[in-house]
C-alpha cells in the first residue's frame, strides 16, 4: 500500500529543489545585483564542471578527505575509550569529565592560533584543530550512551554472572553501540566543519583553499561552486556511511519499529 510513498516523497523533494533553482536563476537574471557578484545556478554549475574536469576539484577533495580521515581516526581512537572511562571510572567522571565539558564549549577554530604556535603552518596544525573539534563530542556522546544503557540489562548480566572483559565487550559496548554511532556521526560533522575552517586560513591545498582562491580571484561562481561541492560531499558521507550503519544497527537492536 505504501510502497510507492518514498518515490513520491523523492519526486516532491526534487520538484521543490528545481523550483528553488529556477527562482535563483530568475533572480540573478533580473539584474538587481551585478551578475559577477550574484551568478545564477547555470554559471555556477559551469564553474563546477570546469573545476571537476581539470581535476582541481578532485585533487582538493581528496586532500581534504585524506586529512579528515586521518584526524577522524585519531578522534575516534581517543574519544570512544575516553568516553568509556568517563562512564565507568569515578576518577575520570569526577576529574576529567568537567575539563572535557569545559573545552567542548570552545569553538574548534579557537584552537588554531595555539596550533599555529605549536606546529607552525603545517598539516599537523589542521589535524590538531580537527581532532580537538571532534574528539570531545565523541567522548561525551559515548559517555552518555553508556550511562543510558538499560539498567535491566546490567542487572541480568550480573545475575547471569557476566563479568570482566566479557561484560565490557559483550554487554556494555553492544548495549551502548547505537548511541555511540550517533555520537560518531555527530563527531564527523564537527570534524568536517573544523577542517574547512582550518583550511580557509592558510595554503592547504584542500577545498577550503579552493574557496580562498576563488575569493582572491573575485571569482564568485567558483566560490559558490565549491560551496555546492562541500554540501554534496557532506551529505553523501552522512547518507552513505552513517545513516546506513546507524539504520542497520538500530534495526538489528530492535530500536526501530520494524515489526
Amino acid at each position, binding site marked *: 500500500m505504501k510502497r510507492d510513498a518514498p518515490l513520491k516523497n523523492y519526486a516532491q523533494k526534487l520538484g521543490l529543489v528545481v523550483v528553488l533553482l529556477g527562482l535563483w536563476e530568475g533572480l540573478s537574471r533580473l539584474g538587481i545585483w551585478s551578475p559577477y557578484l550574484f551568478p545564477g545556478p547555470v554559471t555556477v554549475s559551469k564553474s563546477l564542471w570546469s573545476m571537476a574536469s581539470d581535476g582541481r576539484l578532485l585533487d582538493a577533495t581528496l586532500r581534504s578527505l585524506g586529512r579528515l580521515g586521518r584526524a577522524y581516526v585519531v578522534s575516534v581512537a581517543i574519544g570512544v575509550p575516553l568516553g568509556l572511562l568517563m562512564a565507568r571510572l569515578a576518577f575520570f567522571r569526577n576529574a576529567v569529565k568537567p575539563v572535557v565539558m569545559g573545552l567542548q564549549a570552545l569553538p574548534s577554530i579557537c584552537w588554531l592560533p595555539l596550533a599555529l604556535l605549536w606546529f607552525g603552518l603545517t598539516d599537523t596544525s589542521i589535524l590538531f584543530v580537527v581532532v580537538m573539534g571532534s574528539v570531545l563530542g565523541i567522548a561525551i556522546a559515548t559517555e552518555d550512551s553508556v550511562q543510558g544503557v538499560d539498567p*535491566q*540489562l546490567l*542487572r*541480568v548480566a*550480573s*545475575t*547471569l*554472572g*557476566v*563479568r570482566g572483559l*566479557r561484560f565490557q565487550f*559483550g*554487554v556494555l559496548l*553492544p*548495549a551502548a*553501540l547505537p548511541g555511540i554511532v550517533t555520537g560518531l556521526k555527530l563527531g564527523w560533522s564537527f570534524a568536517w566543519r573544523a577542517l574547512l575552517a582550518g583550511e580557509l586560513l592558510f595554503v592547504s591545498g584542500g577545498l577550503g583553499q579552493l574557496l580562498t582562491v576563488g575569493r582572491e580571484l573575485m571569482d564568485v561562481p567558483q566560490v559558490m561552486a565549491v560551496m555546492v561541492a562541500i554540501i554534496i560531499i557532506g551529505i553523501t558521507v552522512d547518507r552513505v556511511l552513517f545513516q546506513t550503519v546507524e539504520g542497520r544497527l538500530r534495526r*538489528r*537492536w*530492535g*530500536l526501530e519499529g520494524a*515489526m
Partner: protein
Amino acid sequence: MLRALLGRWRSSLRLLRPAHVEADHAKISVTQLGHRYGNKVVALQDVDLNVRSGELVCLLGPSGCGKSTLLYALAGHVQPTGGTVSIDGQRISGPGPDRLLMFQEAALFPWLTVRGNITFALAARGVPRSERKERADQYIRRVQLQGFEETLPHQLSGGMKMRASLARALAVDPTVLLMDEPFGSLDAQTRIHMQELLQSIWMRTHKTIVFVTHDVHEALMLGTRVVLMAPRPGRIVRDLEVHLPMPRHPEDAALTEMVRHVQGLLREVERNTLPEATPPRATAPAASSPPLPASGLPRPAR
C-alpha cells in the same frame, strides 16, 4: 480414582495446610530478615522463611508488601539491613552462580539471537564452547521455541520472549530459580500457557523455585507452597502448603475453591484485619500439627 474424585471435593482448608519447615531441613533459610530503604521505608520486618529443596514457593501479597525486596535479598542483589539468608547452611553475601533471578521483563540481550542469548550466558558460566550450542538448543526445545533459534528478541511476541528468557535461565542450571512476577506483563491466555509450561518444567526437574506474584490464581496454580505477605511493615502472615497434585488445571474446582479462600485472606490483609497466625514454634512446638515430611508434598506421578 474414587479417592482422587473425593479429593477434589475436600474443602480447600484441608488442601491448604500451614507449613512448618525446620531450618536444618531447608535449602534456603531466612531468619529475622529486615530491610529498610534509605533507613525510612520498612520494606521487610522479622521475616522467617525456610524453603526445602525442590519446592516451588509462591510469595503472594498486595503491591508494596516487600515481595521483590525479599526475593532480591535471596538473590543477593539487596543487602538486607538485618537478619540473615543462608543457602545450604551457608550465609550468602551477594549474587552467586547457585541462584538466578528472572524479572518481569524478559531482559534478553537485543543484539543476540535467541540461541545467542543462551550460549552467551553459558559462556559466562564457563561451559566449554563445543557444548554450548547443543545445550542451548536442548533448552529451546524444552520451552517449545524450536524454529526461533536464529530470531532476534524484538521479532518475538511477549510470551515467546519470556520463554526465551526462561530457557536462558534454565540452561545455566542454577540450583535456585528466583522469579519476580515473570508473567505479569503477559496477556491472560499466554500467561496460562506459561504457567503450564513452568509446571511441566518443575515436574521434570524439581528445581527449587521462589516465585513472586500478586495474582492469587497464579500462586495456587503453581505453588507447592503459598506464602502470604502483608505491607507496612512487609511481613509474612500465612505460610500454606498446597496439597493439590500437579499438573493442575486452571479451572479445577478445588483450585477455584482455594482461590476464593485465599482471596478472602488477601482482602483481610488489605484491610489489615487478619490476625497473626499462631507462631508455629513459640506456643505449641510441633504438637498441633506435626511437621510434614518432604514426601507429604504433592509429587507428580512420573
